[in-house]
């Protein structure tokens, strides 16, 4: 049987993390599922969780008045959804919309923040890993803004 500790340890985001830390993380974790079409979170909501996506796909969308939501990126298997739990004011920046059925591990951000405050080694590990994700997403967004496939580019 797959334990939460094992699922967390095998997720690419936590590759190489010491078992002591995966055990700590498992104390804040739970299995979740979302049907296609569900909004996992919405912009402005309190950010109390992040998710390790195990299967499926989540669209990050931004709301624009009098327009349909704009899809900025998708997050899929092996990726992380949500980092707003880590930094004040702990509010969602985007909508997270399951475009197909999603299986994930939800990690309780409040629980994790407390553990990170108590154990700065864990906190530093989390910050390093999330900073890497932020850098990748920032670069991917810049790439999209360049609109490189447009005529004359």
């Amino acid at each position, binding site marked *: 049987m797959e334990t939460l500790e094992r699922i967390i340890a095998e997720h690419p985001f936590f590759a190489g993390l010491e078992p002591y830390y995966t055990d700590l993380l498992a104390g804040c974790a739970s299995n979740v599922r979302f049907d296609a079409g569900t909004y996992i979170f919405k912009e402005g909501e309190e950010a109390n969780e992040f998710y390790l996506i195990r299967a499926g*796909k989540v*669209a990050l969308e931004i709301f624009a008045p009098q327009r349909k*939501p704009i899809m*900025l990126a*998708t997050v899929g298997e092996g*990726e992380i959804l949500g980092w707003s739990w880590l930094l004040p004011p702990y509010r969602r920046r985007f909508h997270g919309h399951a475009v197909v059925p999603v299986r994930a591990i939800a990690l309780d951000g409040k629980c994790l923040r407390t553990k990170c405050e108590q154990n700065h080694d864990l906190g530093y590990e989390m910050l390093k890993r999330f900073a890497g994700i932020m850098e*990748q997403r920032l670069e991917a967004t810049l*790439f999209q803004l360049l609109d490189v496939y447009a005529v004359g580019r």
Partner: protein
Amino acid sequence: MTMVTAASTEAMLPQPYSVQQVLKETADTFTLTLRPSNGAGASRFQPGQFSMLWVFGVGEVPISISGDPAQHHQLVYTVRSVGEATQMLVNRAVDEAVGVRGPFGRGWPVKEALGRDVLIIAGGIGLAPLRPVIYEVLHNREKYGRLVVLYGTRSPRDRLYRKELAAWVRQRDTQVLVTVDYGGLSWRGHVGAVTTLFKHARLQPARSVAFTCGPEIMMRFVARDLETLGLARENIYLSMERNMKCAVGFCGHCQYGPHFVCKDGPIFAYDRVRPLLGKYEL
């Protein structure tokens, strides 16, 4: 001084072909099938080579061959209508004439990829010069390892070869992933830069050779990320594009540092062009 030979004179002479089919791929991109007007076989080509296509009375443009190298009776080109000559080209009616010079240049090193996993990373119309590689691998499936096709484009409606993309997914040992920069709400695929697909691709960098074609800035990011993933620079190939005119290295219009893209390329190993990719003036 360059010697003008009979062979080079012949290379400057367009051969008459006639249009067999014009297929609309997207709002501004069309695939043309041409056959020799004299009924003979078409020129043989290597995947990645290009031709100079003449619209008589209008002009000549370099276009990569996007068809199947095993089909010797025709040449296929995918053309984006961006200027007068390309617009006239895609507006050709069936049986109308087009002049063809070539094929020219060094193609993708498909023979060096034998026995290895082949990773294709294409952006926008950059899928066109890579399609012959995909045909080559699929025709000789047992001679290659896995085929991974990563394709990025602007929006779902800008995807080229949609039916073929769907068909390639069903081929054995083949993974095809498509991402778009702007997905509509009905799009269920990936959204994001083509480089974001690497984490979803089943790659074995040590046994892979990568071929990439797309906007130069995209290829720069792709090559950098492939290197980070563990591919050796000499196993990463890029298709460069410059202003090609004569196509045989006489005129110098397509000079790229010490290279002429028309005859030394358009396909280059990353280790050969890496120092040039960051030079603004080139």
